[in-house]
């Protein structure tokens, strides 16, 4: 007969007081439950006694302030053996000046409202969009209607098109440049090679020092009488000065004749001379031309005998004798008038706009008749090259160096009018800069700054190295 299991037998084999006996697992559970909290208490007591300020800190300091990790009193007021949780603005302003954003802003937030500390090793100057749209979502000013878009919440929500690209805007530059032609294959001379220009052959940031392919060393090394700044058109903002370039690679430098144009656009002025005129003001060019001619005639005195060239005579003008003997001064005056006429009427105007161009001998645009002289000089209109289109924003070409120029400046390929603004629109920026993990940073602070640093006040240093490196509070 098989073994059978009965409830009675089951009960009989059990010690009814078994639960009173401490088992190994019960003992382990009890002692671990005692030891672990005691260890926790001992740990926090030890941390407190050792004066570790990080124990009650609400988080690691930002990158810029990491050196103050153990210096709670620098920002927090000490009270009753501890520190106040809130850091006052005065603590920030004792090291930093925080110039006001706009003088007509209706409210000025506390420093910590935008710059949140104890959030880990973050860039504390990169504030959240919410800090900006606190005002810009519904912008009001003390002086009434704001000058800027009044409802901006973020780059993708309410940010207007760049001012430079709004309706009616045009490039104020006066240089006559046809981008479309320059982006096509070009024959450098009647029998010269065909070249394909790259954007970087003409446009480079100032800090880039590599060789220019289409430069003429003489022009590149020359120091013109005009300054580069005189040619720059400043796009001014009402407030908040432009960010100063830091690396020199952020912005494209204005295109220079000596480095970008001189190899193809020759400034030759007379078949007697191989060397062209300097790329300078008309006064300088005139002196150069006259000096070259004087030097020439001194070396070739026989050339003062000028024979008539029927091909250059214009109808209705007095017919000159078959041959004339000129004084050297007359010869120089006549030749310089002819040469300069070529320059003012053709060579310079290829790119520049000239005012008060001396007329030809009775017929504008025509070559002066032989024997005429003129020493009137034109005025070259200021180039007005725009070096910076967005005075309120920061842009770094270097940070975008992995992208081809035309992927953003797509209009450059087809633009035939120098008045076209080739700045990419905000939609191009929004292609990459947007919220989310698969996009580039899009916070306001990526391009804009809050404080008007032109109003910056200097602060007195307060730390010494021994103080800052000490671990005591």
């Amino acid at each position, binding site marked *: 007969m098989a073994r059978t299991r009965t409830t009675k037998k089951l009960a009989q084999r059990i010690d009814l007081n078994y639960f009173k006996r401490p088992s190994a697992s019960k003992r382990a559970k009890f002692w671990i439950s005692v030891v672990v909290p005691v260890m926790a208490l001992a740990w926090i007591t030890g941390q407190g006694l050792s004066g570790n300020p990080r124990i*009650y800190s609400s988080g690691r300091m930002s990158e810029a302030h990491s050196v103050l990790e153990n210096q709670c009193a620098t920002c927090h007021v000490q009270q009753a053996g501890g520190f106040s949780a809130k850091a006052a603005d005065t603590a920030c302003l004792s090291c930093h000046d925080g110039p006001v954003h706009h003088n007509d802003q209706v409210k000025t937030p506390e420093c910590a409202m935008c710059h949140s500390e104890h959030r880990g090793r973050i860039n504390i100057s990169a504030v959240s969009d919410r800090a900006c749209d606190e005002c810009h979502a519904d912008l009001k000013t003390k002086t009434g209607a704001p000058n800027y878009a009044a409802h901006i919440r973020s780059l993708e929500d309410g940010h207007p098109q760049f001012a430079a690209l709004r309706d009616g805007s045009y490039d104020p530059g006066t240089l006559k440049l046809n981008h479309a032609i320059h982006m096509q294959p070009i024959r450098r001379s009647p029998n010269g090679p065909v070249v394909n220009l790259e954007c970087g052959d003409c446009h480079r940031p100032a800090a880039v020092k590599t060789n220019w392919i289409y430069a003429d060393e003489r022009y590149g090394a020359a120091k013109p009488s005009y300054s580069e700044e005189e040619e720059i058109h400043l796009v001014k903002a009402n407030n908040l000065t432009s960010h100063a370039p830091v690396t020199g690679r952020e912005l494209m430098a204005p295109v220079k004749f000596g480095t970008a144009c001189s190899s193809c656009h020759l400034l030759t002025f007379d078949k007697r001379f191989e060397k062209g005129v300097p790329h300078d003001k008309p006064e300088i060019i005139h002196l150069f031309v006259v000096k070259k001619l004087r030097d020439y005639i001194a070396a070739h005195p026989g050339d003062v005998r000028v024979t008539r060239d029927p091909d250059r005579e214009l109808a209705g003008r007095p017919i000159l004798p078959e041959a004339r003997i000129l004084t050297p001064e007359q010869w120089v005056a006549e030749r310089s008038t002819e040469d300069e006429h070529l320059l003012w009427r053709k060579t310079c105007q290829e790119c520049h706009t000239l005012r008060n161009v001396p007329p030809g001998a009775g017929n504008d645009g025509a070559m002066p008749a032989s024997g005429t002289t003129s020493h009137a000089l034109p005025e070259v209109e200021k180039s007005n090259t725009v070096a910076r289109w967005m005075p309120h924003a920061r842009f770094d070409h270097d940070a975008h160096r992995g992208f081809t120029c035309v992927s953003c400046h797509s209009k450059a390929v087809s633009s035939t009018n120098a008045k076209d603004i080739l700045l990419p629109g905000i939609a191009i920026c929004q292609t990459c800069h947007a919220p989310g993990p698969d996009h580039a940073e899009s916070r306001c602070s990526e391009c804009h700054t809050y404080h008007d640093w032109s109003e910056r006040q200097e602060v007195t240093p307060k730390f010494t190295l021994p103080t800052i490196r000490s671990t005591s509070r």
Partner: protein
Amino acid sequence: MRIDKSQRGWAIASLIILAGSTTAYVFSAHESPRGATGGSPLGLLFGSIGFGFMIFAALLGARKRVPVWRIGRAQAWMRGHLWLGLLSLPLILFHGGFHFGGLLTEVLMWLLIITVASGIFGAILQHYLPTIMTRNVPLETIYDEIGHVHSLLREEADRSVEAICGPLGFSKGSPEDSLRAGGFAAMRPVAPVAGSAGSGTAVAAAAEVLVLSEEESAPLRRFYLQEMRPFLEHPKKRGQRLADADKAAAAFAGLRTLLPALAAHAILDDLMEICDEARQLVRQERLHHLLHNWLLVHIPLSLALILLGAIHAVVAFRY
């Protein structure tokens, strides 16, 4: 405790609290220039409620110690422990704005995460393991008595073998011997064996079972002394043939062919059952460890969490 329909009320209430808290958190984090912070009014509210839930969850231990108190059914406390303890994690994450903060708060966050994770692990175990236990350990006994039951099984096996093989020197013959291990009543009468002191007192005497001669009993004796007895003494030891049900069945089948008397085969059946029960008790022990050992992490860390959390709360409110 099983996660079944009886938890629906708690689950719905928890989901509502979570949804409300999430909405409030998202709105606050989006609208505040500084994002969500523990020191903001909403942050403090999240922290207070989360800590309150933790304390409630911790009070389950106290509630168990005083079962006679009329402060709600233990099941309700257990459900509250489960759901409010689980809710405390998102609420505390909302409190800190998903930042772990300084050293103390970082430690607190990790303690909370480990405590909640171990609790979830324990809840899953408690949902599935009792069913597995019922299915795989039909001869389940009280865990604390497993060692004692093992010794009873050993004694029963000793007596059974001595009954047909003659004395082995194991039987004690105490009055307790009349109790069969595992709650089995020994219904099989065996013949008294001359010289085997005490064995006759274990069960009722009967003449059906004959004592085998030394030569006939040699295979059983050898098997018992070399394999089964060591197995019953150390059933958890690895590499034993009898620890595996299939191998044990094969071993007994082989042994059966070597024993002549049919009555001896009945004893072999008993020995097989004893081995099976011993294996079940080992299985029960393992499942019990799995079912309860997570508490060795959960309880101590939750106590440390409450202690350090209270310190954090005092410091935060004071400064």
